[in-house]
């Protein structure tokens, strides 16, 4: 694989085919946990790790996997990887595990993971597959963090609250109070805020893309898929 090919994997995963903003897969966790930056970041990192490990295992086994059993095999592998991550989080990031709760095991159901397994890892060698998992996970993670930031800022006027759950005691000081005495904007914290926030992010991405390529919005690849 050439340097160009690797670069394409990176830009596809993070921008051109961004799971959250373009392909719109894995929306359930995306919408559910993004009420703060830290929740988004934590689920994003867990999903990224899952993608890298599942892509790696599937790429290694790809020669053995016959077409008729590949889907159950993918499911087995992804479920094992996610359960391992869940156990590790339960043991080492206990407070975060409690906050994210059911959404950690639900990473299994994120279609983006089986999607990458099928579309990429089962056809490519381990290194590009891991990179693809990293890029796709990074794109997803960035979307989660951005959406978390939008919602946390409008909903509570803070950023990075609860950082100590992810990074340890010292990080409690990281919480930024951007808008002091914020009365709390419930809509942003509750599920509708997730839909509005995601819509705004998608619109922002599309308009950025349109401006960058000087083409009308309708011709942008990706825009029509939404």
């Amino acid at each position, binding site marked *: 694989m050439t340097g160009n090919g690797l670069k394409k994997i990176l830009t596809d995963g993070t921008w051109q085919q961004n799971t959250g903003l373009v392909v719109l897969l894995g929306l359930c966790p995306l919408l559910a946990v993004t009420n703060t930056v830290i929740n988004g970041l934590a689920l994003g990192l867990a999903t990224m790790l899952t993608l890298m490990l599942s892509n790696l295992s599937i790429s290694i086994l790809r020669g053995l996997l016959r077409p008729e059993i590949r889907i159950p095999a993918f499911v087995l592998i992804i479920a*094992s990887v996610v359960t391992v991550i869940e156990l590790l989080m339960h043991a080492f990031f206990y407070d975060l595990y409690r906050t994210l709760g059911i959404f950690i095991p639900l990473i299994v159901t994120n279609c983006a993971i089986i999607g990458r397994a099928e579309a990429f890892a089962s056809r490519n060698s381990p290194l590009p597959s891991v990179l693809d998992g990293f890029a796709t996970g990074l794109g997803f993670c960035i979307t989660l963090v951005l959406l978390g930031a939008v919602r946390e800022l409008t909903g509570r006027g803070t950023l990075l609250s609860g950082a100590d759950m992810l990074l340890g005691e010292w990080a409690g000081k990281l919480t930024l109070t951007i808008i002091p005495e914020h009365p709390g904007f419930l809509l942003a914290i509750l599920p509708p805020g997730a839909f509005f926030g995601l819509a705004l992010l998608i619109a922002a991405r599309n308009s950025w893309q349109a401006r960058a390529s000087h083409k009308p919005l309708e011709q942008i690849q990706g825009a029509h898929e939404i």
Partner: protein
Amino acid sequence: MNKGWHPVIRSSLLLGIIALLGTALLAGVNDLTHDRIVAQEKRRMLQQLNEILPVASYNNDLLADVIKIEDPGFFRHPTAVTVYRARLDERPVSVMMMVTAADGYNGDIRLLVGINAAGTILGVRVVSHRETPGLGDPIEAEKSDWIFGFAQKSLHDPEEKGWAVKRDGGGFDQFTGATISPRAVVRAVHTTLVYFQANKQALFDTPAAMIDQDD
């Protein structure tokens, strides 16, 4: 893999091997993390208990001195009430009771109620709930001071009819736009107090039973 085998057998074997590998991996990780997870659960539980119960007031192993009670006459919720007994040199000091109020606005509210041997409330904390954010969630200690109002209360302070939210003629505040959540909490705390008063001796004397730390 033998090329001569029937494809179905080959595929099944392959899937079986992947399942086996996955299981082995999970068993290994489970083994490695199990003790740590149990320790984390205990630490968290103890942290919750010590928020209400001063560490210096007891010297027994709180998490081991536990009984579970089921008394449908008092606690209508099917979940058994977990009772942690605090003792100082074998003398009963207080109980911490994990009760469930089923009449919240949106499902169960789990409460930790600490009562000392004299029948006075040490404190109450909401352990878990699904009340509406912004309306019912001031029952959480992080969201408002409301829950601290239970400390020092007892069956005689306030009297029987005072154990209700103000809208029902009692002595406890409700929240703007939310009466059901605080009402459920007040009721559950009152029930717990009444139960404690009626079964105080048994609560302290029943031998501890080894129970699962299911939360």
